[in-house]
């Protein structure tokens, strides 16, 4: 009698343990499934990704009769497709972008934003998608320039620009460097292309555009400074950051980011 009761108790315990295990597995699977769905819902609770953009900065974003166009627009739309939600754009003045993000009016800023460490308490940036730092450009068939020794080299640049500031510092350490200031950075690149200068120092965006306009001209470049552009989300919206960063990674790995950059820049 007591033995039969013990076996029954054992069976009930085994059954209970199996039931507990099955419930735990079911909960685990449900949590994972729910998490994958809930991430998007938590990140973008309106059912769309609300993108803040300053559409006054070609070729990244411009407003053409109400239609937004540019690299930032195409990139944000591609990210939204990767995430599987629609993108809604809001054209906001550059100096109101962060207020719109922090106040929750938008979910992300895709607006060629330089990374600003001072905003780290409020904002988290993704990895960068464009570097608008200064590049030292030389003709492709000339010997590569050693920035540690520019003595005797003729360097063209835009007068009073950040390139000018940098070169003033270089000039102090390499007195033989020949400074060639021009009113516009495109003139500095003209000087290089026409053989008046040995190198030009300009921002990457200007150089990329110039290359596009002079596709027959072969040139080489190296970054001298870095000015990365990245996407910003609210620091407390970790889900949004994860989703956008993952989407950006997919676009980068799949070549779509490079294609968009080539299309617009």
């Amino acid at each position, binding site marked *: 009698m007591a033995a039969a009761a013990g076996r029954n108790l054992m069976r009930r315990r085994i059954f209970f343990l199996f039931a507990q295990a099955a419930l735990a597995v079911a909960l685990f699977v449900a949590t994972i499934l729910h998490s994958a769905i809930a991430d998007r819902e938590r990140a973008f609770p309106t059912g769309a990704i609300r993108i803040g953009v300053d559409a006054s900065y070609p070729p990244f974003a411009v407003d053409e009769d109400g239609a937004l166009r540019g690299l930032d627009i195409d990139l944000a739309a591609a990210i939204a497709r990767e995430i599987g939600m629609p993108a809604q754009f809001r054209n906001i003045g550059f*100096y109101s972008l962060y207020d719109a993000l922090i106040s929750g009016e938008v979910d992300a800023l895709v607006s060629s934003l330089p990374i600003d460490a001072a905003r780290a308490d409020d904002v988290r940036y993704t990895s960068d998608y464009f570097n608008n730092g200064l590049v030292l450009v030389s003709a492709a068939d000339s010997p590569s320039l050693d920035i540690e020794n520019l003595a005797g080299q003729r360097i063209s640049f835009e007068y*009073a620009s950040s390139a000018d500031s940098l070169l003033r510092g270089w000039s102090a350490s390499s007195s033989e460097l020949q400074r060639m200031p021009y009113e516009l950075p495109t003139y500095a690149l003209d000087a290089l292309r026409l053989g008046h200068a040995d190198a030009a120092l300009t921002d990457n965006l200007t150089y990329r555009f110039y290359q596009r306009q002079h596709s027959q001209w072969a040139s080489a470049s190296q970054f001298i400074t870095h000015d990365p552009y990245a996407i910003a989300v609210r620091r407390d919206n970790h889900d949004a950051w994860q989703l956008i960063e993952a989407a950006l990674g997919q676009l980068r790995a799949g070549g779509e980011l490079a294609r968009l950059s080539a299309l617009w820049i």
Partner: protein
Amino acid sequence: MQQEPLGLSQQFVQTQKPQVCVHTLLENEVEATKILRSLEMTRELGAGTIVQFFPWAYVEWQAGQYDWKRTDSIVRLARLQGLHIIARLGLVPGWARNPGTTLTNLPDAAFADFAEYAAAFAARYAADIQRIIIWNEPNLSAEWGFQPVDPARYARLLAVSYARIKQANPAAVVLAGALAPTLEKPGSRVGLNELDYVAALYQLGAQEHFDALAVHTYGFRAAPEVPPHPDQLNFRRVELLRQVMVNNGDSHKPITITETGWNDHARWLHAVRPSQRAAYTLRAFQYAEANWDWLATMCIWALRYPADLRGYPDGYTLINAEFLPKPVYFELQAYARGWAAQESLWLRPPGET
């Protein structure tokens, strides 16, 4: 604030252009060494004068008790660099404001308190500071405590302050205005254009209560030679203000431009290219020198911010927060100190040579 550096000796400004001046922002600087470096770089620039803000709220943060430690230090360090100071007074301490208002909100009941501070300031620094600006941009609602702008109230503030300053230091020069350049029409909630505002001051008889007019005039995207027009903001807009003074029989009073400049920030719609900024700044001084005999001093906004703001205001500074001079600093220095000027700031486009 840190202790002042020791062993400083008297310096002198070497300049060929005594009208060159910069607006400094030393009131929010923590380290005395940075105040000193800012003033040294002002002297090295060849600017003999600074405009500097001395907030009432920083000095008399307890009613009736003046804490002059910070202002004493700034004035002493400027004197040791051989610099003149144009003092701008404003910013209301908490005890003088109505609850829930901003630091630019000055109730009528506190006009006399502000005037007492202005008089105490004028007396204390009589040996060093002669020019005192009453308030900043009172033609903007934001600078007038987010109330509707009111020339009549400003005229009353001017009258009370003028009388007390003159009692404290009869040699003091009281500057009115420092109005913001704006196109706001009467009735606007934002402000009132400075032409109508100054005209209203004259209608109110305020000319008895200022010795000179302080003017803010910015170039925005226009070259310095572009003629003025009431519906446009540009550098020569100051000439329209001058005409208001002349129309009211005040042509004998000088004008001091206490804020001017161009901005070269890449992401601001009202900015110009860096090369234009440098060229326009030089040409502005040259234009003023050649055409404006009524101009006493012209001050560039701004020498430096205590920290870079990572926004368009950075495009106005001559040196960055790390004390690295921008190229426009060097060009202004060459002008002020009379060093051999280049024929052109830049080379001709390669295609034209």
